[in-house]
């Protein structure tokens, strides 16, 4: 479609404005969350995972075993909020001593496998929403998962990515009725991830453009 010369300047301004909005907006345009809470300036180094995170005010680290998971929980009235957590874990199956390494073939296979296992383990499991997001330059896929543990309906914001030989899961989870309240915090914590070592050139995906 041709554009009259007198309108071309207006069109260029509109395109520029749109580009500015996109550039200044959240990296995850698929988000339905409210504005995320402010994050603490303090970075939490997670040496075992080779990354760091920041937490919102009022959150505390509750588990740092160096083995299975790193976990943070929100604190209200001096007590952890029951049933709400944010965890980071790494697929360690490929690094078991004595066994040959079996790194994930890629992000797609890692997500597919995690998805299949979560579906197998959980009751009433479904993916309510999905999209892509950038984690400090690495492409990641997020799922909003609705599921149930023994008797509790839950919902999680789960982000999966692959770096080097490892798959990473970042997951904020809350009882179903509380999820929307905590979702902005989950997204903010995940978005604060910074790799502590430079991403090797081969792993960089320069063309990645989050949706």
């Amino acid at each position: 479609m041709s554009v009259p010369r007198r309108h071309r300047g207006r069109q260029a301004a509109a395109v520029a404005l749109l580009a500015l909005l996109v550039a200044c907006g959240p990296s995850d345009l698929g988000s339905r969350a409210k504005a995320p809470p402010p994050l603490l300036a303090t970075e939490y180094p997670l040496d075992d995972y080779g990354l760091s995170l920041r937490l919102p005010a009022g959150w505390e680290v509750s588990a740092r075993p160096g083995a299975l998971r790193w976990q943070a929980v929100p604190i209200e009235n001096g007590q952890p909020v029951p049933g709400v957590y944010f965890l980071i874990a790494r697929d360690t199956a490929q690094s078991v001593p004595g066994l040959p390494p079996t790194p994930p073939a890629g992000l797609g296979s890692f997500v597919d496998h995690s998805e299949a296992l979560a579906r197998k383990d959980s009751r009433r499991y479904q993916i309510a929403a999905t999209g892509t997001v950038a984690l400090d330059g690495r492409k990641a896929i997020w799922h909003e998962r609705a599921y149930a543990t023994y008797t509790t309906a839950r919902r999680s914001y789960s982000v999966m990515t692959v770096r080097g030989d490892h798959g990473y899961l970042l997951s904020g989870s809350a009882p179903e009725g509380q999820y929307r309240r905590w979702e902005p915090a989950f997204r903010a914590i995940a978005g604060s991830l910074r790799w502590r070592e430079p991403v090797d050139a081969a792993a960089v995906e320069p063309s990645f453009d989050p949706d």
Partner: protein
Amino acid sequence: MGARSTAALRRVASCLLPLALLGGCSDGEAPQVVRFLVVGDTGTGPDGFQYDVARVMEQVCAQRGCDFALVTGDNIYERGVTSVTDSQFETAFRTPYANLNIPFFVTLGNHDNTGNTAAGDGSNNGRGDFQVDYTYSPGNVGRKWNMPDRYFGFTWPQTATLPMADFVSIDASPITHYVNDTSRQWSGDTVATYIADQQAFIADRFRSSQARWKFAFAHHPYLSNGEHGNAGSFEQGTQPDVCTIPLLVSATCRGAEYKAFVEAAVCNEADVMFSGHDHELYWLQPTGACGKTEFIVSGAGSKTRVIQAPDRNPAYFQVGDIPGFFWVELNGDTFTGAAYTETNGISTRVDTGGRPLPVFERSFRRRE
């Protein structure tokens, strides 16, 4: 026959009804009295002391009354079961407890989740799933075996709107084990999510519970004066120290993450945490890090071992090298626990009528 014995018999009789196995023995209101057995590490079948212990359990239930039993794990030695029709469900559960017509609420132990390498290594959680599935199988006649999920909760009476007691069963083995389960389902991000969800479930359930009493039961202890020891320091007393065996041993072997798990989800919420794993009987005092919670270790249901470090944790009672179990009564705000031991199917202590007498009994009032 005294009024107490008559009431106990009436209660046992009412529990013979199949419906009672599912719904408890009440008409919907919480009774003032609930009684149950706590027995663990039972699963030897006829090769261990299981059948002899069961005879004394029958006698105590006939004498004092039992609504149900808690089983604190290692339900099937040495490597769990391989299907819901595994014959060990008969030899190590249905046959020894055939005369105990009460529901058994069962938690998973490390031996129930073993099947890849050495016995008890905890490296095959898939085997534990068969014990869950057995709950729903036709072979589970009368729904006597109750493990509705790998971790679960139940109230007693189950039909009461305001139950007397709330119980949660912890699936401890994925949190602390000797050898990593290398299956993708039980490693890395999936097991981490499983543990976090389990912790959230338990903490949420306890904090929202309206029951008068709250209890946790698990296989692995938080405190123990036995060979396995305290969570966070598991196996430091074993020779050789199994947590230092190269290549095979998991980073969770000492139980540091399990200790943190219990402190976050159970401590100062549960009135008592029941466990097994060590094959002795202990009733250990509360410790500062865990608030009001008391600890009963009942792991002598078919195997025995000597007490390794009697001064490791202050104890109200401890006995080793003899099979036995605990019997518990909740009467309003009073908890009474009694330990029974046996030799050749006969209670170590008996009254003049030959009926079992406990080797220890203690009561305490519920603390807020």
